[in-house]
C-alpha cells in the first residue's frame, strides 16, 4: 500500500506569532518553523501501518518555502520513505483554494491508495484543504477521524461531528483527516536521522504540476489588538472567595 501524508510546516505555536500588517502574511522569521503537530500525528498514523506491514510505502508531501525541506527531512528521519517538496516563490501566501489545487495536482501523479492529512492547521485554522483535495480528485473523504482501521481495499473509522459520533467507511483510494484523538508522533532515532540523508526528495514548482498560480482571496486590512495586561493578583488566606464574589458583584457579572 502507498500512503501519502500531507505535512505542513507552520510557525511554532509555543511562541507569539506575528502577522505582517502590510501584507497580511505570516512573518516566518519571527518563530521557529516546525511541523504542525497535527500533521505529525497524521504521519504517525501512516508509520504505524508500516510498522505492521513493511511493504507499506510512506511518502510525505509538503508545499512551503525552502526551509519546509527541514520538515520533510524530519518526517523522513521518523520513518517516511521519500518526500515531495512543492517550492515556488509564486505560492507565497497561497490561499486554501490555490494550496488545494497544487496539492491535488501533485497527488494526481502520486498514485496513492490513501492520503492522510491533519483536520486543521494551527496557522490557518481553515480545515478546508482536505475536502477541496477530495473534490478535485473525486476521492471519498473521511474527515475529523478519532480512530481508523486501515484495510487493503477499504477503511473504516469513527469521526466526531458537532452532533455526535459517526461510524464511517470508504473504499480505497480515499483521503482521511485525523484529529488530536490520534496518537502523538514518535521521535526520530539516531539510525533514522542518519538514514534520512539518503532518502529521495523531489522538488517541484507549480508550473511543473500544470497549476496556474492565482489565489481567490484577497486580504484588505490587518489590525493588531493591544496585548492584555494583568489586573490584580491576591493570595488566598481564607478571604479570596469573598473577594472573588465581591469582584463579580462590582463588575455586574452576577
Amino acid at each position, binding site marked *: 500500500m502507498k500512503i501519502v501524508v500531507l505535512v505542513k510546516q507552520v510557525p511554532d505555536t509555543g511562541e*507569539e506569532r506575528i502577522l505582517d500588517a502590510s501584507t497580511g502574511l505570516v512573518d516566518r522569521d519571527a518563530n521557529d518553523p516546525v511541523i504542525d503537530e497535527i500533521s505529525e500525528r497524521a504521519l504517525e498514523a501512516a508509520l504505524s501501518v508500516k510498522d505492521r506491514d513493511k511493504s507499506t510505502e510512506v511518502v510525505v508531501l509538503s508545499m512551503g518555502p525552502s526551509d519546509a525541506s527541514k520538515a520533510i527531512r524530519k518526517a523522513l528521519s521518523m520513518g517516511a520513505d521519500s518526500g515531495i517538496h512543492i517550492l515556488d516563490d509564486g505560492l507565497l501566501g497561497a490561499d*486554501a483554494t490555490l494550496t488545494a489545487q497544487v496539492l491535488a495536482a501533485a497527488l494526481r501523479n502520486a498514485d496513492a491508495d490513501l492520503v492522510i492529512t491533519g483536520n486543521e492547521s494551527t496557522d490557518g485554522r481553515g480545515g*478546508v484543504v482536505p475536502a477541496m483535495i477530495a473534490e478535485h480528485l473525486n476521492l471519498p473523504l473521511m474527515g475529523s477521524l478519532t480512530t481508523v482501521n486501515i484495510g487493503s481495499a477499504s477503511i473504516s473509522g469513527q469521526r466526531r461531528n*458537532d452532533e455526535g459520533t459517526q*461510524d464511517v467507511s*470508504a473504499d480505497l483510494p480515499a483521503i482521511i483527516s485525523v484529529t488530536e484523538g490520534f496518537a502523538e508522533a514518535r521521535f526520530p532515532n539516531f539510525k533514522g536521522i542518519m538514514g534520512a540523508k539518503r532518502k529521495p526528495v523531489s522538488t517541484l514548482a507549480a508550473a511543473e504540476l500544470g497549476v496556474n498560480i492565482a489565489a481567490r482571496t484577497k486580504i484588505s486590512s*490587518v489590525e493588531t489588538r493591544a496585548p492584555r495586561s494583568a*489586573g490584580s*493578583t491576591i493570595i488566598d488566606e481564607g478571604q479570596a472567595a469573598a473577594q*472573588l464574589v465581591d469582584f463579580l458583584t462590582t463588575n455586574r457579572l452576577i
Partner: protein
Amino acid sequence: MPNIVVFIELTHTTQIPATAPGLLALAARLGTPIAVSVSQSPLNDEHIAALGAQGAAHIYATHSAQAYSTLNSYTVDALEQAISAHQPAAVLIPASVDGREIAGRLAVRTGGGVLADVIDAHAHDGAITAIHSVFGGHYTVAASVPEALPILTLRAGAIDEIAPAHNPTVEHLELGAHTAGRTAHIDAQSDAPYNTNRPELRGAATVVSGGRGLGSAQNFVLVEQLADALGGAVGASRAAVDAGYIDHTAQVGQTGVSVSPQLYVALGISGAIQHRAGMQTAKTIIAINKDEDAPIFEIADLGIVGDVFSVVPQVIELLKARA
C-alpha cells in the same frame, strides 16, 4: 438586496441547530437570507415557521431518504443547486466539522473562494468583506474574494444578533442520486450526550474551565458546580481533556473552541499560550492557581493564588447564599 445562501445544518433528527440564528442574522445584514436545508423527509410547517422566525426570507428545503447515508455529498449537491437557482452574493456555512468539508467541496465545485472561520462580515456596494480573528485574537484581518463567489464559514457563537422575522416562501425539492462519484458512507450515528441544562460553550456569556490542576475526573465536578452556580458553560484545557477528565468537545484553545465570553474563569490551568489563544479575548478573566508564577496571571483581571479545592467550594457557598 442580493441573495445570501445560508446552510442550516439540521441534525439527522431534523432539529434546527444553535448555529442557525447567528447565520441568518448575518445574512440579513448582508442581503436577503435564503435558508437551505437537507433532511430525510420534507420539512414540516413547524420547521418552516421556526426558520422564518429566525429570519429566513425563503427556504430551499431539499430532502432525500438517502441524505444521511453518505458523508455530506447530498448537502453539497443541495447547495450547488440553490446557488444556481438563487445566484447569491455569498454563501454562509457554519464552521462546524461538517460545514468546513461542505464549504471546501462546494468551493471547488462552483469555482468559489473560501473565507474560513469568519467572525463577522460587511457588505459595501455589493462586495462582501469577511472579518477573521487570527492567532488567538491578536490580529483582526479583513479579506474578500473579489472575482468569485465568497463562501464563508462562520465561527459558532460569533454573531449574537437576531434577524427580523419573516413569513418565508418555500421551495420543496427532492434530491436525486448524489452527483459526487465516490464518497464515504455513514454506517451508524450516535448523538452526543450533552447536558441541555447548561449553555453551549460557543457563544456562552460565562465560561468556567478546568485544567490538569483538578487532578481527576471526580474532582472535575467542582468545575461543573461552579459553572452551574454562575449559569455558565464548562470548558477545559487540553491537558484536562487528554487526562480524560472531560470530553474533547469542551477543549478551549488553539486546537479547541475559541470563546469570547463576558466572564472566563480558569481553574487549575497554567495558561499555556495555546490555551490563551482560545480565551484571551474574553471581557473579564478570573484565574485560580496554586502557582503564583503561572502565566495565566499575566492576562487575568483578577488572579487568586490559591488551592481550587479550598477556594471554589467557598465561592459556590457564597453564591448560593446570595441567591
